[in-house]
């Protein structure tokens, strides 16, 4: 091998994502061995659960909301704001979409577009509540978004159970949405919907805006050094508010996409229970400030997440193991980032 190739290989092997995923998998294997699970059974079960036996459709179906939530976290993060309130924004979007779709009979195409727009708006508004708290009052967004999230989830849960709830079944869910509001399916099972190309297109748009537009530059400048950006003429407070609202809009849209997809109703807890929000947080942090790596990291963690359920079914390993992996990945990425920054300085 030539010297250049060796150096390239070394750089890839020692890059933060590879070390983080490798380290997290090593530690997870250790956890398996400690609790008496055979990794040689668990890992094949994980892979089968994610891609074999028709499970790939579920994995792609889970990739869509996770990628959307990754944008919800990544967009404000570029401007230096932590949006941990994804669950509340997601629930608000879902409930807005369901309410609109159930209350007004709409013509075919609008019946999908308007609820999605309402969902985006609702998510954006919930996230925007945190913006003045952060920019005017100095309350960190990481705290305010999270505090706003809990009541938003409670409110959505209340609305879905009572005013919007299905009468007579006693189940905490809305009635099924009218057929015109169903997202067109792309696969036979119906789980992969038009949401996939939509989110992929929005991700492309975000990547373009982040790297190639003035707005993206100003967002990044605000995130890197707020005082410097202000000095350079960037209206940082407005930009931070925009970033938070935009992130919330993505989360709200995801809520709308889930509700307009199978089973075509808002089932209480179904939006927040799969943990899209924090899988997305882990993926974005794993991508380590490289926007183009975000979809890859999301795909990887979605495989883990969905595969984890297969592992639970086949090998009896609780699927919460994947949450452990995600937590470890975040910690390792954080440690690795500083260790390398210090080495570069030295």
């Amino acid at each position, binding site marked *: 091998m030539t010297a250049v190739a060796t150096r390239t290989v070394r750089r890839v092997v020692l890059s933060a994502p590879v070390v983080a995923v490798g380290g997290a998998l090593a530690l997870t294997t250790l956890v398996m061995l400690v609790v008496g699970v055979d990794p040689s059974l668990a890992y094949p079960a994980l892979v089968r659960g994610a891609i074999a036996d028709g499970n790939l459709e579920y994995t792609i179906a889970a990739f869509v909301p996770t990628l959307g939530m990754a944008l919800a976290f990544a967009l404000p993060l570029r401007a230096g704001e932590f949006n941990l309130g994804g669950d509340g924004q997601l629930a608000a979007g879902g409930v807005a979409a369901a309410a609109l779709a159930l209350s007004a009979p709409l013509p075919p195409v609008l019946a999908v577009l308007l609820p999605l727009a309402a969902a985006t708006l609702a998510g954006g508004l919930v996230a925007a509540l945190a913006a003045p708290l952060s920019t005017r009052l100095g309350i960190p967004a990481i705290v305010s978004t999270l505090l706003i999230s809990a009541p938003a989830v*409670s409110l959505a849960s209340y609305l879905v159970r009572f005013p919007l709830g299905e009468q007579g079944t006693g189940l905490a869910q809305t009635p099924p949405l009218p057929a015109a509001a169903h997202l067109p399916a792309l696969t036979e099972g119906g789980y992969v919907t038009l949401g996939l190309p939509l989110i992929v297109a929005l991700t492309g748009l975000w990547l373009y805006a982040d790297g190639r537009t003035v707005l993206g530059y100003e967002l990044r400048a605000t995130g890197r050094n707020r005082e410097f950006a202000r000095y350079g003429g960037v209206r940082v407070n407005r930009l931070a508010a925009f970033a938070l609202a935009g992130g919330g809009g993505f989360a709200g849209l995801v809520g709308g996409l889930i509700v307009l997809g199978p089973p075509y109703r808002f089932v209480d807890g179904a939006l927040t229970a799969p943990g899209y929000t*924090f899988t997305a*947080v882990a993926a974005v942090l794993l991508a380590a400030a490289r926007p183009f790596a975000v979809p890859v990291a999301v795909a990887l963690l979605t495989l883990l997440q969905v595969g984890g359920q297969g592992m639970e079914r086949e090998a009896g390993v609780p699927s919460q193991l*994947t*949450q452990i992996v995600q*937590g470890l990945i975040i910690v390792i990425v954080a440690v690795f980032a*500083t260790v390398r920054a210090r080495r570069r300085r030295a």
Partner: protein
Amino acid sequence: MNILEWSFLSGVLTATAPVLLAALGGLICQVAGVFNIALEGQLLWGAFTAVVVSDLTGSAWAGVAGAAVATLLFAGLLSAAAVSLRADPIVVAVGLNLLALGLTAFLMRQIFGSGGTYTSPDLAGLPTLAELGLDVPVLGPQSPLVPVALLLVVAAAWWLGRTRSGLRARGVGQHAEAAAAVGLRVGGYRHGVTLAAGVLCGLAGAQLALGNVTLFSEGMSAGRGWIAVVAVMLSGVRPYRLLLACLLFGIAEAVGFRLQGAGLPQQAADAAPYVITLVALVLAAVAGRRRRENA
């Protein structure tokens, strides 16, 4: 005063205690310049380990000690990553909170064989002060950890205001370079407060799982660690104000509980502590801003 009102005050104190213990941990970290938002995960880990040890040994006090030690070790991860290796404490804490959530849910299934909620006759809860012979109103139905939490507020105020190490910890927080220049070991103080916060979160978890109730359920910390973070922000790093902030949360939870009994939906009771804490935080920040503008 009638019985109902005593029981309300008692309920306030019960709801306050775990948050107060965790918030004391957050406060001493803040004093020394460590922004600790890993309280939520540590509180959950403390609750889980308290239940595991109490269940295995049949002794609630062993559970308390086990939670303190286990959470000290868990906090060691934060102190190693954020203090020794100087990783971003916010990102590390986000990861550790997720880790605690996954680890407790995973180990719960491995140890107790099922998820959701675990309770058992083998699981020893903390005795009440009334059972220990101190049958007074309000404090009587509390576990001994509740007066301990209140005394720790006094102890924290004394440590920060009257002792050499407390003043030095404040110096480390106010100006790390200056503190280092006069020969203080900045890292040492920061390790110390981070680990001590772990012990306090362990106690908070034990109080939550063996005092307030006698069970463990997934995610039972339910945002209390985040409320504790807010309480620290509200307190302006003063222990007595911290107590007031935590009492505010306790009142919100107790009122929510009452209203639920009176027919209000459960979701309103769930949301009340967050809404009230958030409103208090906003009012305090507005007042602080006005004060700065007038000055």
